[in-house]
């Protein structure tokens, strides 16, 4: 890589017009996932039961619903970054653009359903 123009050196961006944001966001969401998933697994393990009443009652608490929403956002973002690398490494023809669009659709739709479900349980108490 050349030294670029002086403004390019200041911005630390090359001709791709982007820098290390993929790498950096992968690390940031990895750290967030480390905390959120540890909380999630311990909470799941410590639930007194796994019937609908117990689990939905647990999810109605703000102390559960808010971390769950943050978990979905962080995990889906991290999953998207990881699957992007998979596509870039193994899909070499034009279909990589199709796969990237499908990937974006997959994580956006998935996260939207997940977050809506948590909000729905938290706000309406999820009717039996």
């Amino acid at each position: 890589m050349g030294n670029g123009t002086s403004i390019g050196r200041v911005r630390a961006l090359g001709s791709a017009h982007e820098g290390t944001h993929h790498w950096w966001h992968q690390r940031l969401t990895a750290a967030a996932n480390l905390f959120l998933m540890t909380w999630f697994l311990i909470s799941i393990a410590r639930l007194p039961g796994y019937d609908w009443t117990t689990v939905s009652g647990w999810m109605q608490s703000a102390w559960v619903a808010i971390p769950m929403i943050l978990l979905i956002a962080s995990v889906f973002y991290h999953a998207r970054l990881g699957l992007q690398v998979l596509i870039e490494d193994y899909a070499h023809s034009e279909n990589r653009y199709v796969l990237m669009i499908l990937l974006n659709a997959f994580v956006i739709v998935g996260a939207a359903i997940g977050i809506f479900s948590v909000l729905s349980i938290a706000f309406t108490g999820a009717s039996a």
Partner: protein
Amino acid sequence: MASASPHTRPLSPHLTAWKWGANMLVSILHRVTGDGMALVGTVLIVWWLAALSGGSASYAAFMNVFTLHTGALNVIGYIVGIGLTLCFFQHLASGIRHFILDVGAGYELKANRRYSILTIVFSILATAAFWAYLIWGK
């Protein structure tokens, strides 16, 4: 993203040319477990949340796939549950290994190999401990 490349470009024989080591195994395990969870784990957690918000009937339909009538996990429940937790703990441990490598540490041959093996030891022990607690600890 680089532009699409022609099919005729030669590929590196990276999987067959080298003697396998712990670092190579952990590297590919990190990708397999991460992308596995990204494809299967995300669908499962959204299915679980949607079924939970849909009410007791839809939640029961979800649980019936993974549990027996007694409420205990069935074969699918154990395979998916243990598989995903093993993937999670392996990805967590090799992810922490990546954080260590990111700061420039752990590149010496012996240390690199030791950290790689440790991630596998950790993931097996953590999975065993998690399921031991779920099955006998409650």
